[in-house]
């Protein structure tokens, strides 16, 4: 089911600090993710997986090497161009949900559309549709404080997919959820991957969560230590 290359790392380095204290979060990583893939990214903390995710999501740029997103040299774009890439092609789901407090679910989901300049009426309709897709009909006007963790994460997923992105970047999306809620969210992501052909890159610590993905990339000390196909899903 994999298509053309969506994401490619070509000897990507990411370094912090100067001289003796210089730390390499990524030390010459080569990596490719194709359209439609569902990739789990694992590794101990400090392994460089978060840095890699930030670069994949066009939030960060490599110190050296080339990062291509949809064929574009995204590592050399300025802040605003990367913001535009994110707005048009990337959806984000975070561990801590990161919804705007005291703002209703539908308003949260509308947010990326505001920065696209979509008219209010259309924005509302699209947001309602996205909330329906994640199974939150009837909760549209609840604020995050009035929703459970699982529901909040569904709102976050709806916000990520409302723009019909090419790539979904999920940073430990189930980290704050119990087992039942975890499986609900993972089934939702799997459905989006198979149903909409959404490419998903997901960081996780848990092996059974990674099991939902079709491929697992393990980071260690700034390198890709293992890149395996999850046979049971393939």
């Amino acid at each position: 089911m994999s298509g053309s290359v969506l994401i490619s790392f070509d000897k990507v380095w990411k370094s912090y600090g100067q001289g003796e204290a210089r730390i390499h979060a990524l030390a010459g990583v080569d990596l490719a993710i194709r359209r439609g893939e569902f990739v789990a990214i694992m590794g101990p903390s400090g392994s460089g997986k978060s840095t890699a995710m930030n670069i994949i999501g066009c939030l960060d740029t490599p110190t050296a090497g080339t990062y291509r997103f949809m064929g574009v040299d995204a590592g050399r774009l300025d802040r605003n161009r990367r913001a535009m890439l994110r707005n048009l092609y990337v959806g984000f789901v975070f561990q801590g949900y990161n919804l705007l407090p005291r703002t209703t679910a539908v308003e949260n989901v509308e947010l990326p559309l505001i920065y696209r300049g979509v008219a209010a009426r259309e924005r509302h309709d699209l947001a309602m549709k996205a909330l329906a897709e994640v199974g939150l009909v009837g909760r549209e006007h609840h604020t995050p404080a009035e929703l459970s963790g699982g529901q909040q994460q569904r709102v976050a997923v709806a916000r990520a997919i409302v723009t019909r992105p090419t790539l979904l970047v999920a940073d430990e999306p189930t980290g704050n959820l119990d087992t039942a809620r975890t499986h609900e969210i993972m089934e939702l992501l799997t459905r989006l991957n198979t149903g909409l052909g959404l490419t998903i890159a997901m960081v996780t610590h848990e092996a059974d969560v990674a099991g939902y993905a079709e491929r697992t990339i393990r980071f260690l000390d700034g390198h890709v230590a293992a890149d395996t196909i999850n046979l049971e899903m393939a």
Partner: protein
Amino acid sequence: MIWETIRLSLLSVRRNVLRSFLTLLGIVIGVAAVIAMLTIGSGTTEKVKADISKLGSNLLVVRSGRPAGPGGPGGLDQATRPLGSKELAALIAHLSGARAISPASQKQVRVIFGTESLTSGVTGTDSAYLYARDWKLVSGRPFSDSETRSGTGVCLIGETVRQQFFGAGDPEGEIIRVNRTSCKIIGLLEPKGYTGFGQDQDNVVLMPLAAYQRRIAGNRDIDSIYVAADDRTPTNELLPRVEDILRDTRRITPDREDDFSIRDMTQIADAMASATTTMTGMLGAVAGVSLLVGGIGIMNIMLVSVTERTREIGIRLAIGAHEKHILIQFLVEATVLSLLGGIVGILIGLALAGLASLTLAIPFAPSPAVILLAVGFSALIGMVFGFFPALRGARLDPIDALRHE
């Protein structure tokens, strides 16, 4: 997009009602002070102008004694010769360009009617006095020429005197005692109200000069001569003519200075009006400083707001907001905040000025220009002082901002 941002900023004002209120207090007080000062100031200016024009427009006032200095009160030098009928007659005979020339001598005297008494400004004058000072009668008649000449015991009274003695009743034909003499009331003067210095212009009794001189002053002196210019003659042209005639009459040789003073009421009016305008401007400027303090308050709270909402900024940036979106969001928020403060301040300022105009008896003169300026200025303060915090928010790195707790 911009409406969205304004709605958003109003929402954030409402979320933190107390904080927003405290932040706004600086702007509110600043704008209220400026508006109150400027409104009261322009009311005072109007009042001063009106007061002076009540004295009579285009009026010169001649008094004995050397002028005390430019714009000064023209103090009387008792050692010099007083004015008399000789000077008055000379002016009437020779001065051209005058609409009315009238003598006036004045003294504070106890006036009695029945068991009531009142200390009143009693003025001895002639029938031209009312004309010179643009003063009308509500009822009755002015002195006749024969009454003026013979010094008959008749008088005109002001509104305050009427109220004191007769309440709502008709004073005409009643006899009042002025000092040791008595006089019959033949007319009631139109009310003029208080001067800017709190002097009651209606607590007056006018009587023929000859009667005043004989029965009250006990001499033949004239305290002052009022010369009203006609419509074609500016007072500054009339003044040297009056001076020439008086120097001639009083036989003052060219090597000596005037032993009398001529005050130009038009000039005094202008000088006083410009003095109050300057005063108003200064008070307004002082009040303006508090606006600056209010602006710093806005900056402070916007910095807090940006820090507090670092995570929100991170989310927005991650989702695809450009720097300018964040900048505009916080700029609009600061501007809306200080505009709200400005509007509340204007309302409070106008209320204060209204209250002041009631208690100080000055006209309530709100200026649309000043109000517009206050609105514009408070918006500007929001933008200027909101810019730095907004820029700080916009420049945040989305990764750091998202990690912020």
